[in-house]
């Protein structure tokens, strides 16, 4: 088949969705399909977003057998054969503030247009998948539609390994407001002695890095928090996970199960996540594969302590996490089969 994978494009932002799209293209090509990736720009302002919607709506996808749409507005591209693998909707139009936009005469027409276009596009799609149960649940809630969950496999095959835990909990991922590394640092003020927190990942901005540094200073945990504020290689990442007691991953309302959680699980390590972290709960079953804590420093500190001070229990949770991750059968073969059938 001639397949057009359609994703959006926020200039100079490269995150999970971009990695997902790249890997999908690769997997589809390896399965014998002709594949092109089309990225439609989506701006930041309401006007730019509206223009993105218009551009997608007016586009002609010629010489294409099927469009595989991933994100708004790319899945609006007109074509008789569209399969949507929904990474997430344009949540500003659906969710309550602060993720969603507040009622505003300047924004309401755009919200109305987004919802109208989504309704038609979802209804016209040949099949509708989501990348996680969380996204499926949101779709059900906002649009009354049932989608099949087709969870995203990891972007790359990794040589996951498990080593004897050293004395740190690791917090991986882009350092940002949304990932709440700050919360993990605040928790360390309340944590019992005997272990550290390693925060590793590229900060979203210099301002974010300043925020993190100030938090470490003001919490007085400079001797217990190690900050590696840069992009870390896959090898470094796997090494940190392998040697950790467990992983702390505290995003707000994550769409997917979270690669960071998956990587920890595949390495036989438990994950501490928050009750409001969304999709991470797919792999973090409280007390079995990790711990789910209230998003508050004291509660998180208790969770850290439980893993750090009960290593056998942490080890068992890590093994359970790996078993669960394998049971999910996150294979690209299945994704390719579903998206091309």
């Amino acid at each position: 088949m001639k397949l057009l994978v359609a994703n959006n494009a926020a200039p100079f932002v490269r995150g999970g969705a971009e990695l997902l799209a790249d890997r999908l293209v690769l997997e589809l090509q390896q399965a014998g399909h002709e594949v092109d990736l089309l990225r439609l720009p989506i701006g930041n302002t309401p006007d730019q977003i509206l223009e993105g919607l218009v551009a997608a709506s007016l586009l002609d996808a010629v010489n294409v057998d099927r469009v595989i749409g991933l994100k708004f507005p790319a899945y609006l591209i007109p074509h008789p054969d569209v399969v949507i693998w929904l990474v997430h909707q344009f949540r500003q139009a659906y969710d309550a503030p602060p993720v969603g936009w507040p009622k505003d005469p300047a924004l309401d027409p755009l919200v109305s247009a987004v919802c109208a276009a989504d309704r038609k596009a979802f209804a016209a799609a040949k099949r509708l998948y989501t990348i996680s149960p969380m996204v499926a649940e949101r779709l059900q809630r906002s649009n009354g539609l049932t989608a099949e969950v087709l969870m995203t496999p990891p972007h790359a095959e990794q040589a996951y390994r498990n080593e004897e835990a050293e004395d740190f909990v690791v917090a991986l991922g882009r350092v940002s407001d949304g990932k709440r590394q700050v919360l993990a640092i605040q928790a360390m003020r309340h944590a019992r002695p005997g272990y550290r927190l390693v925060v590793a990942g590229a900060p979203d901005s210099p301002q974010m890095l300043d925020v993190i540094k100030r938090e470490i200073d003001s919490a007085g945990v400079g001797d217990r928090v190690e900050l590696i504020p840069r992009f870390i290689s896959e090898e470094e990442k796997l090494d940190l996970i392998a040697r950790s007691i467990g992983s702390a991953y505290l995003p707000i309302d994550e769409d997917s199960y979270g690669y960071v959680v998956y990587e920890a699980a595949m390495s036989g390590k438990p994950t501490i996540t928050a009750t409001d972290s969304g999709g991470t709960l797919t792999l973090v079953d409280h007390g079995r594969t990790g711990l789910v804590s209230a998003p508050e420093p004291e509660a998180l500190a208790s969770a850290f302590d439980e893993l750090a001070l009960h290593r056998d229990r942490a080890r068992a949770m890590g093994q359970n996490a790996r078993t669960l991750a394998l049971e999910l059968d996150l294979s690209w073969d299945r994704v390719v089969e579903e998206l091309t059938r």
Partner: protein
Amino acid sequence: MKVAMVMPMSPESAIADVMTQAVPDLSARWDLEVWCPTEPNYRPCPVPVRPYARADAEVLEELATYDLVVYVLGDSPWHSRILPLAQRLPGLVVLHDASLTNLVRQTAIETETFDDLVAQVTEELGEDRAEVLRTAVAPGGADAWLRFCADVPLMEVALEGSLGAVVHSWWHAERVDGLTLGHVTVAPLPVPSTRLGFDENQSSSAARLMERLPQDAVLLVTVGSVNTNRRIDLLLEAIADDTTLRARIHLWAVGPTEAKARSDLLSLARRLDLQDHFLVTGRVTDLLLQEILTRADIAAALRDPVLEGQSASVLTQLLSDTPVMVYNHAHYAELPDDVAVKVDPGTGSEGIRAALRRLVDNDSERARRGARGRDYVLASRSGSAYAAALISAGERALAAKPLVHLNTDLAARLHRLGLNEEQAVVDAVTDLTFDLFDLA
């Protein structure tokens, strides 16, 4: 170029009269055929005339074979079998009236789309106006209905998707700006001919009118349907308020009159003790109209609200050497200042009184303005000049044809995602289209 002009061809249609004046010149440039709704009789025409009974798919199919279709519309039932064609097959629309409310309403009823029309007006203008449209009754009577027609002209119904519009004043052009895909052309409306086909209805009593008029009377006339928007009531009040005017002026309202309007005006004249100086002639023959205009000293055209795109009757009056008094608004304001005496509509009967005194007291002023008016009409109005403007508009309409395809395509794409009803999206697409195709 093969062109179909769809227009009424009734001998009594004034619009048919002015349009046929352009036909000889149009047929010299276009391979022209006139299509018209069937009538008992048709006016003579130098090109083939193809009457049709219904505005149906068969007619549309045949019209679609022409390079260009010109639709001639006015706010009367003569056009109710033309409007549905204009709505379905894009063409050049010649608009004689600045309000099509009556036509659109009537056509919607005949084509069983009235509920849709009312729903559209409800959505765009609110329930109160939709109710007036639905019942054709405006709180306040006939005058209020005329104002409603001015406020809710429904011209977009005729112009949506069209290739261009021809109007007869800059004022009207401004009112239709943005409603058509193509260009808006202002064409010089010719003066109606002296034969409008009313001879069959000649009233013998009307023929004796002239004999009863005192020789030294100053004859003031209004010409055309005696509606409340001719402000004949204000003319009467102005005359009654001035001893000189009361003594010298005889006011004749010349034209078709409904009984209620006639009765109201005669009552008012009696109250003002002007009954011997006021006459409602009813419909007159072409010949008698000419005689009246020849005798008339002053003509008044105080239309408010203004519902027509140009005043054919004022042109007729000007051609007859008669000085004309108009309100200084709408297309009347476009008449040269040395031709028409313009009255500020906000000044009421006092402004009218002052203008009348100026004309009554000064014979040479009347003569000068009368002569200037005739020169103006002779210089600017003719079937040939009108045809030249129509030909130019036709060329622009052909150039706008690709926009119809663009419009259809964009509409289909937006409709696919239900975005055709999302104003923010429609506005954004419109802005982009204007930028891309330099339409601003």
